[in-house]
């Protein structure tokens, strides 16, 4: 057993200095406050600043995930640390399609689309869910009818991240008039194609991080199919599993440290809350769950490297993270006492209301990308081999 993270050699100090200097010079000055989660700026101007920032990083050789797959391990760690500290997004749009292209795309598709994603030149959205196909994604009804060397697409999508600013969409549509997963095909859709209408949704957070997308006789070249026609469910499942695994990778150790800080500042029973045994027990429970999250991550990474991933690994990781995240936010608000009821914009709010925003956004993790109820089905049915739930008629 070994999970040692080797210390970064002193020889890399110069690299870190170069990154810091670059960030200091190029970090965009946004009108918008980045928040927890996959969040989208309010206006085009900020998006353009972010594109310029990602492009500058890429052109300077500071790509976190270089499209050629090469890259120095230590440089990559330094880069992530420093860009994390910068507090500005350096991945734009939903990168879900990258996994799909790597696994199922043609060489040409990979060459055409992967580098612009890394360079911030292309922003992508996913066009998966529909108003009547949420948990039951395989019941989607958006049609893509073959018409010569094109497909004509009609239907409505929802929960499309970044779609209001996206250049391309990763689309699932039905190419065969059969029910269920069999007739679904994955496409690359140029969002500027006539017939594509995007309408930002406003979510309970008060922000617009998702969109509705209406597709009205949208023509897609046949060459934009990812994988084979009818293979779309496999393509999507593989990329969603990657996303679910990814959900668990957001660390929660900083949040636990913040709880300690709050417990020092706010009071309970006439003394700092950190002296209250009940608060200490609660903080310890969160610290344990946070550390276990990291250990579960080590486990999954080990299994991935060995090719022994179980069907339950991704859903288990998603459940663990999303519930921990939600409860951390709830507890942070409770620790703040009445201040917990104050939000961004209110000068008295704690830490600019970030916990309240994170609390409201937390349901994106327990619902989106397959709700936790669906995750439990996956664990039970695919992981444990219990009988499948019956479909209705």
């Amino acid at each position, binding site marked *: 057993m070994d999970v040692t993270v080797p210390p970064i050699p002193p020889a890399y100090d110069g690299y870190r200095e170069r990154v810091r200097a670059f960030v200091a010079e190029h970090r965009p000055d946004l009108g918008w406050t980045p928040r927890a989660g996959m969040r989208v700026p309010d206006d085009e101007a900020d998006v353009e600043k972010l594109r310029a920032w990602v492009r500058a990083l890429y052109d300077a050789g500071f790509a976190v995930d270089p499209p050629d797959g090469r890259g120095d391990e230590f440089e990559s760690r330094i880069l992530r640390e420093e860009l994390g500290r910068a507090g500005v997004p350096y991945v734009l749009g939903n990168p879900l399609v990258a996994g799909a292209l790597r696994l199922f795309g043609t060489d040409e598709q990979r060459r055409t689309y992967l580098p612009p994603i890394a360079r911030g030149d292309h922003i992508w959205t996913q066009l998966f869910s529909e108003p009547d196909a*949420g*948990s039951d994604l395989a019941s989607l009804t958006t049609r893509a009818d073959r018409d010569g060397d094109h497909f004509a697409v009609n239907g409505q999508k929802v929960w499309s991240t970044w779609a209001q600013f996206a250049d391309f969409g990763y689309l699932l549509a039905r190419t065969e008039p059969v029910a269920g997963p069999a007739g679904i095909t994955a496409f690359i859709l140029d969002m500027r194609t006539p017939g594509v209408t995007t309408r930002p949704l406003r979510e309970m957070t008060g922000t617009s991080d998702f969109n509705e997308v209406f597709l009205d006789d949208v023509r897609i070249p046949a060459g934009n199919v990812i994988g084979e026609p009818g293979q779309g469910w496999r393509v999507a499942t593989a990329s969603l599993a990657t996303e679910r695994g990814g959900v668990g990778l957001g660390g929660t150790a900083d949040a636990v440290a913040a709880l300690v800080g709050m417990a020092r500042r706010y009071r309970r029973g006439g003394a700092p809350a950190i002296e209250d045994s009940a608060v200490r027990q609660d903080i310890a429970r969160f610290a344990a769950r946070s550390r276990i999250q990291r250990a579960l991550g080590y486990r999954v990474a080990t299994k991935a490297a060995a090719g022994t991933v179980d069907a339950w690994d991704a859903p288990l990781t998603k459940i663990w993270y999303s519930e921990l995240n939600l409860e951390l936010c709830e507890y942070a608000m409770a620790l703040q006492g009445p201040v917990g009821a104050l939000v961004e914009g209110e000068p008295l709010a704690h830490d600019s209301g970030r916990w309240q925003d994170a609390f409201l956004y937390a349901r994106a993790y327990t619902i989106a990308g397959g709700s936790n109820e669906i995750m439990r089905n996956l664990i039970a049915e695919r992981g444990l081999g219990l009988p499948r739930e019956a479909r*209705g008629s």
Partner: protein
Amino acid sequence: MNFAFDENQQLLRESTRRFLADRQPLSAVRARLESASTFDRAVWEEGAALGWTAMLVPTEYDGGSVTHQPLVDAVAIAEELGRVLYPGPFLPTNVVADAIAREGTDEQRKRFLAPIARGETVAAWCLTADGTPDLDAVAVTASGAPGGGLTLDGVARFVHDAHVADLLLVAGRTGASVVQVLVPADHAGVETRVLGGIDLTRRLCEVRFAGVTVDPEAVVGDGARTPDAIARSLRVATVLQAAEAVGAADELFARTVEYAKERVQFGRAIGSFQAIKHKLANLLVELEAARAATHDAALALADGADDAEEAVAVAGSYVRDACAHLSGEALQTHGGIGFTWEHDVHLYVRRARSEQLLYGDPAWHRERLCTLVEARVPDGAAGAGAV
């Protein structure tokens, strides 16, 4: 035994429900969500005519309750107000009315109670600077003024509905003790600011006092009794708040059950999936327990029972935790649609989370509850054991 609203209370509840459906549906509140105030004074005055602010006011001051248990009557109303996330000052106005009725001088009762009962005067209660019920956190000083009056300086925060109040009941510190005084909200030196809160349907405020001098006649009650009077007001507030929370939870639960029956996924209503069925069954258990705890507390407080404080501590801890939890699970059951701004479920989530932390948070009430339970248990109650 009758552990249910009696006939008159049921009539009161039904008339309140019909009135609100007609005059103050949640859609009407929604239209004002992003305004400075969500309060509709016309609706409030009509509500007062239905008795909203009369229950805790004696009949000689235009008050009157429908039964001999005014607080239970008020709970029947509060549940209906909670159901539509009513944005008005029902809770603070009734708390202040109760305080004046019990502690005020004859003169104060005459002057303030009838206008409150008639809906003309809206009242708010300014207690502490941090929103906790801890008297150490009273941050308004009340220093002696020429002529025997008091001058108020300082701040109170997390004050329900102060922005629409006409009258403020203000706790102030005089040396080591605390007094409460009545101050017109438009008095010079009083400044009210609405706090940016997670609850979009009801407002919390900060109220600042700068050299606000009042007559000696503004002092409510005898100084030595003030901590007890404040404790009483906290109990009334806790019970009314619990009733609002139960009403809101009841409405949200009913909507969630309906949604589960209608929403089809995998070719079946999602309510036919056992995971959803058991989730909803668990929520019903929580909801019914919260309702029972609230009625238990209302009854004990209305009857002046020996264990009323214990019953209130149960309500103050269990009910708000349960209702906040229920709101989150209702959201989860709604899935993506519940995550949208347009859907009402987040308004219930926001209300439940905000109220959970006021008038003593659940941990505060549990600490109190443990102390009360301890006092009942004689030494040696653990049974024999030798190590």
